[in-house]
């Protein structure tokens, strides 16, 4: 049962909101970066699209590694 013993970032409601916040931040940030790159190279729509997709990929990597690191390695599938 999750309680104050578990670190705050590993409890499930906080982890779910953290996942969503990371996703939104990644998409907005890299969408913005892609938009700026597209502005200087000519085509803002393509830049925005590429930036948003890169943001999704980067956020998914971040979430995957964070979730793996949160459990500290003692609850992963390697112990069977």
């Amino acid at each position: 049962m999750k309680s104050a013993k578990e670190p705050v970032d590993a409890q499930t409601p906080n982890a779910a909101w953290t996942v969503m916040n990371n996703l939104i931040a990644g998409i907005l940030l890299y969408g913005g970066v892609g938009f700026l790159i597209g502005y200087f190279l000519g085509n803002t729509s393509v830049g925005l699209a590429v930036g948003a997709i890169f943001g999704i990929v980067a956020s998914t990597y971040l979430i995957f590694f964070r979730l793996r690191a949160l459990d500290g390695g003692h609850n992963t599938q390697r112990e069977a």
Partner: protein
Amino acid sequence: MLGAVVPMAEIEPGCHLGNDFGCGFPAPDASIFEIEPYFGSFTKPVFLLLLGSLIIIIFFLAAFRNSKLIPGKLQSVGEMGYLFIRDGISREVIGKDGDRFVPLLFTLFFFVWIGNLWGIIPGAQFPVNSRFAFPVGLAITVWLIYMYLGMRHQGPIKFFTNMMFPPGMPKAIYVILAPIELISNVIVRPVTLSIRLFANMFAGHLLLTVFTVATFYLASLSLVGILGSATSFLMTIIFTAFEALIQALQAYIFTLLTAVYIAGSLHAEH
């Protein structure tokens, strides 16, 4: 019989389904949230908020005045409210040394909840948090609190390095992921906190308005009119109950996330 719609213009002139006035369904849009101020710039949400604060103060003063060891009825209810925040939210999330934040969480919870409750109380049907300024003010307060606490507890530089480089990850992706973490914790948190509360209250009020207007508009002496009007009235009642649940839930989520952000500032990731 099914298609014939008897106009209600003789009984009550207005915008009904079968009258000849030519108005369509008056769909409510965002302009129903703009209400004339009473005087100066003293508007209805401000009045409801002051009245709600007065009610909370009077209730809890009356509950905890002359508190006995074996509580009477009013004191029991007051204690239930207080212990819900202290045991259910604060001690679960922050731990026992977070007891100094219980007054803040208690105030936030009841303030948000009574602001929401004005949406279903007849006479004043306007949820205060459906005007965007009120959730934004609360979210900015929470943001200032957890930023200040984090910087004071962990030092200003270490607060940001702990946030941007969480331990246990392959070193190569830190470059890409540090900006995401920074923006996610500093900017996106208060934005989602305020938008979640605002959007839920806005949508709930709009939904209730649509069903109420539909009850009025479909009222005519025909099968379509009677069935439509009765169904809309039933849906209004059902959605009022659903709205009461959502209001309490949103107040709880706001307080819970505030406690989580405070705990995240106090205990850094190891």
